[in-house]
């Protein structure tokens, strides 16, 4: 049972882009491109696919309460924004922790976190970290060292299966994570153990820090490689909600499901293309560049003059 939400998935995707845009403009930079690529599939996951209960953490994120330890009863994870743990509910791991700003924006769009949450972003003493930490909203595990989320999810899923829990474990991954050997170790283990209660959604934006993946370390035929282990693979247009909807429900018995969402790193903000191939973190080099980006992207996102005014003064 998802919490009631009157917004359509399209509206949520649009809202994610808008929020990340405003935030990045206000802070002279941000993980802007990740909102472009991931908006549709994250909106779909939160609004339609994931079976999550109502949030258990306050709308306004708590401050950082210390690192986990036997002597710290106050430590918490950000999983509460995905609702309580219960056998019937899904779990959702965000493996590329640098997508945090996009996740926070999605949580706000879904009404799972208050709008003011973003004001805590990267703030000293807060829990809304720039690189999502275990205590950051929407985060449940430590994934800033990339390509560990899938293994943890597999272990959790195996245990849930053994306990007979009907809820699934979903993992959001980036394509960069498929360069790490651990990802392939995880895929082999999932297939060998027939872990079929894991769904993986991958942002195949063909980008990483250094630029286009083909110029750094090419992944080759990603779909073929994953499928060769025996997993179910759906390689689809990551901006087409209808095909994503079908792909995310294509589970087959005994197999994990991988949905490869083939995306554009400037979808919905075409002007970002000017920055190619340096899209991983958008930081404006000059006031002119920022102004130019702001005007053009705002136009494409349908952001009004008055909203831009507010941005300039707020």
């Amino acid at each position, binding site marked *: 049972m998802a919490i009631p939400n009157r917004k359509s998935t399209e509206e949520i995707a649009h809202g994610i882009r808008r929020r990340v845009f405003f935030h990045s403009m206000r802070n002279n930079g941000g993980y802007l491109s990740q909102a472009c690529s991931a908006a549709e599939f994250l909106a779909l996951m939160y609004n339609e696919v994931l079976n999550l209960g109502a949030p258990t953490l306050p709308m306004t994120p708590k401050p950082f309460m210390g690192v986990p330890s036997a002597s710290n009863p106050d430590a918490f994870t950000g999983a509460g924004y995905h609702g309580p743990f219960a056998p019937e509910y899904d779990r959702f791991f965000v493996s590329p922790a640098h997508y945090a700003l996009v996740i926070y924006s999605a949580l706000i769009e879904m009404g799972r976190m208050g709008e003011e949450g973003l004001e805590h972003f990267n703030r000293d003493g807060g829990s809304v970290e720039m690189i999502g*930490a275990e205590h950051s909203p929407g985060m449940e595990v430590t994934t800033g060292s990339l390509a560990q989320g899938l293994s943890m999810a597999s272990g959790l899923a195996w245990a849930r299966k053994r306990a007979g829990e009907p809820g699934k474990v979903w993992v959001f991954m980036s394509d960069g994570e498929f360069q790490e050997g651990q990802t392939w170790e995880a895929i082999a283990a999932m297939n060998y153990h027939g872990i079929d209660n894991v769904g993986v959604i991958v942002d195949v934006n063909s980008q990483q820090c250094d630029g286009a993946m083909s110029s750094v370390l090419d992944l080759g035929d990603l779909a073929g490689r994953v499928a060769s282990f025996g997993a179910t693979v759906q390689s689809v247009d990551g901006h087409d909600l209808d095909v994503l909807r079908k792909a995310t429900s294509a589970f087959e018995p005994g197999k994990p499901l991988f949905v490869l969402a083939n995306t554009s790193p400037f979808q919905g903000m075409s002007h970002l293309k000017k920055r190619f191939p340096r899209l991983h973190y958008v930081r404006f080099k000059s006031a002119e560049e920022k102004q130019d980006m702001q005007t053009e992207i705002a136009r494409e996102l349908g952001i009004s003059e008055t909203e831009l005014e507010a941005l300039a003064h707020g």
Partner: protein
Amino acid sequence: MVEIVNRPYASAFETFAVARPEVLCLSADLTSSCEVDGFRDRHPDQFLSLGMAEQNMLSFAGGLAMQGFRPFIHTFAVFLYRRPYDQLINSIAYSNRKVRMMGFLPGITTPGGITHQAIEDIAVMRAIPNMTVLETGDATEVETVLEAADAVDGPVYVRILRGQVPRLFSTPFEFNRLRTLSDGDDVLVLTSGICTEEAMRAAAALSGHGISVHHLHASTIKPFDRDGLVAAMRGKKAVVTLENHIITGGLGTIAAEIMAEEGVGIPLRRLGLNDTFAHGASRPYLMKKYRLDAKALVDAIVSVLGHSVTIEESELEAVRLDEVHSSAKAEAL
């Protein structure tokens, strides 16, 4: 006012590597974050992109070293020893291969949280046989550490500072030799890395209150200039160490080991992260919270000496703020 040098590593590495064709620059998708993007673009034949796959990169470097190349590996410090630790031991350290590991963003110099903060790297690296461990503390050391590192017959791990780095020293990196930054009679202060700047501030403030500090800066962590340390401890009332690292296994531990072995019976106070992970926040915030700053050092010195002077925060001012949005990097970090 100290001079701030912009990206000292970038030009130093280029000059250094271009003159040495056996040097290869290896990178794991953090090329501009490690200031070698210009080098990659201008010297593609000396650059190897290995993608975000650190385990493979370390073993690969071992293979390159077998054929006479001297690979300089560039990534964040954490990604050099946490995930690829077994590769580091078996493909590099055991065979004493000349692989040079350049670790960026040491300790809490990154807001990236625990996954990005190398806070136990020195302890780990120091425990590895054959390994040499270096740490830079200013722009001059960043500019001159490459030659020192490359002269070592075996693997080397270096903590590199990047971005806007203050210039504190006028003489180059000197292998296995402590730098004397101030002479004094009361207390010996031993620091490394970014903490040295803090201690220079603290020492200046303390001298105004009649406490004289003998300040040593360590940039070679393993091996260690034992004689230099022992000589400086003579006649002091106490030793205080300050490091951008956990106090287990790092500089403070080195001081403790040497003091015990040499029978130096004076109090030792170790400042640094005390058996805790940190979290993502700005560097000044974390330095204050975890007591890695000038104020913490002043307090420790005053207390260990049993003095009652009070030194205001304002006397220790001149804190540099890191530009999170400097145009130098591709990653936010």
